[in-house]
């Protein structure tokens, strides 16, 4: 239950009379998962009915995983998918407290084509909130299920969705001393998993370009470590360019035109920007300290980074050209791996304090620091495109597993993302164009 402010306690009642109205200020509420019913989509035959069931399953799993919805058990549904092709009988959905209802139908106009119709209903007002029709290739139903999840999420929560997205990460296998690291990509729910590199080279810190089509990553290979760019559609890789020293942690600018790099040379590391069109490199920091882990603000005008110029690793921000440096973290402990939220309102980071690793968030000026997690080793935070969920790496010494975890910025709903092997260094794409 949220607490209300004392100032908002006003209860006003007009004097009695036939036309009088009571006026009440409602200043408290609850923040609970929205109860939602998701019916299997109707189909014309066994094949389309199977797809309709799978679409509903994907939507239900997506919404449930967000922590903002409670999907009502299908065994409580009275109306069947076929009868839901018409306007629902809302009176049958109210007793199970379904505040929203998702219905739909799948048809197959040609052997290799599908049509999926979807409707979102407000049960208590008996009104349709959204209705969409998708025409797609027969193997595209899963992506449409993600898109329907996004539409539903946005309509009911008021926030942008994040389900039609991908996560790129480093898949790890083998003993710690001879680790095989491969680049991998999957849908945000773990489906459609595939490896992008063969494990012959040690890969680190992948980043997805804002267009969702390219991945920049660091390859630790002899004689010269390199930043590589991979085209997700073709699988083709190409080196970005030669940099003096060792360059790592590439981070894209919001418009994709510039990559920020950390370049280490002679025991020092500084931050550089690299223009992907002109291939020109510009040095942004000149400190004798270790400056690393740069991340652009969503407007592209500021950069947050990590530096030990103050004695211990802390977080700093600067302008895009390296000017106007400001320290933003002042707490005890060691800060690292800052990542600016796509919404612009928060910066996620790793903090080592009291013998534990934490994933935390703070506002861009350093205010309102909050630690969301605590474990033996949490690191590499990255944001979902709606700025609400953070994905990070967790190493568990008891199980000897390294996995990807997600957590809501409220600190609730911590979940493990399914990956076939150990996983680290996640990067979350924007909504797929």
């Amino acid at each position: 239950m949220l607490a209300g402010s004392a100032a908002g306690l006003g209860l006003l009642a007009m004097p009695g009379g036939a036309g009088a109205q009571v006026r009440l200020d409602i200043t408290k509420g609850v923040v609970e998962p929205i109860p939602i019913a998701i019916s299997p989509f109707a189909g014309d035959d066994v094949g389309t009915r199977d797809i309709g069931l799978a679409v509903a399953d994907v939507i239900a799993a997506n919404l449930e995983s967000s922590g903002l919805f409670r999907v009502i058990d299908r065994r409580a549904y009275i109306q069947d998918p076929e009868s839901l092709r018409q306007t629902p009988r809302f009176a049958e959905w109210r007793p199970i407290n379904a505040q929203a209802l998702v219905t739909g139908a799948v048809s197959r106009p040609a052997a290799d084509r599908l049509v999926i119709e979807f409707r979102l209903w407000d049960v208590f007002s008996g009104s349709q909130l959204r209705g969409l029709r998708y025409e797609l290739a027969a193997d595209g139903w899963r992506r449409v299920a993600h898109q329907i999840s996004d539409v539903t999420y946005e309509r009911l929560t008021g926030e942008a969705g994040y389900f039609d997205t991908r996560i790129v990460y480093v898949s790890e296998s083998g003993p710690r001393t001879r680790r095989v690291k491969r680049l991998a990509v999957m849908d945000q729910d773990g489906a459609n998993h595939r490896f992008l590199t063969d494990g012959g080279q040690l890969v680190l810190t992948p980043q997805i370009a804002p267009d969702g089509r390219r991945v920049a990553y660091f390859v630790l290979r002899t004689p010269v470590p390199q930043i590589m760019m991979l085209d997700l559609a073709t699988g083709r890789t190409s080196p970005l360019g030669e940099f003096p020293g060792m360059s790592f942690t590439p981070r894209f600018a919001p418009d994709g035109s510039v990559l920020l790099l950390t370049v280490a040379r002679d025991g020092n590391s500084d931050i550089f920007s690299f223009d992907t069109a002109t291939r020109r490199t510009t040095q942004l920091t000149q400190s004798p300290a270790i400056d690393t882990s740069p991340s652009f603000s969503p407007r592209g005008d500021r950069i947050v980074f990590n530096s030990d110029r103050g004695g211990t690793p802390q977080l700093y921000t600067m302008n895009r050209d390296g000017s106007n440096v400001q320290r933003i973290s002042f707490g005890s402990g060691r800060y690292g791996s800052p990542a600016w939220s796509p919404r612009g309102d928060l910066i996620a980071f790793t903090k080592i304090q009291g013998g534990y690793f934490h994933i935390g968030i703070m506002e861009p000026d350093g205010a309102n620091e909050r630690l969301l997690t605590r474990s033996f080793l949490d690191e590499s935070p990255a944001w979902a495109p709606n700025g609400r969920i953070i994905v990070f790496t967790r190493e568990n010494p008891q199980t000897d597993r390294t996995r990807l975890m997600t957590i809501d910025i409220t600190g609730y709903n911590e979940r493990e993302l399914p990956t076939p092997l150990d996983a680290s260094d996640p990067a979350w794409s924007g909504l797929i164009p």
Partner: protein
Amino acid sequence: MAARPKPPAKPAPQKKAEPSPAPVAKDDNDFNALLRSVEQQNRRVEAPERRPGTGNATAERTAPPAAVAAPVALSASELAGIRRQIERCWNVPIGVPGIEAMRVSLRIQLEADGSVREVSIEESGRFDADHGFRTVAESARRAVLSCRLDLPAEKYAVWRDMVLTFSPGDALSG
């Protein structure tokens, strides 16, 4: 690759699932009976003063009787009780951008059994244009429609018509 979504060719007709129960036009509760008697008394008091040729009414004769002057209203505890019930039903959509500054007013008209006969969102223009406002307004509407209010039956005339103002900013700042 999925094609761009389009609105369905034939959207399902939107209609209310259940017809609204007929409005209760009862006027036989204590409060309205009291009002009628006040009106009748006032008419009775005023009528003689309109006789031609007579002077102004005396103060004693035009003042309403003290026994019926006190307005019948919901007590502070009854108002707080209604408010508490609705707050328990309101799931605040905390992710809406700009929610801190939003205020959404709903006018609700109730049946004598406490069920909602009609709910309307004020600022209907903003409802159509501002998606964040619409999300908050719909959450408030869901709160009102899903809540089964326990109300003092004898004061139906007072609570049959209410305006509720939902302030998410206040809810979040507490």
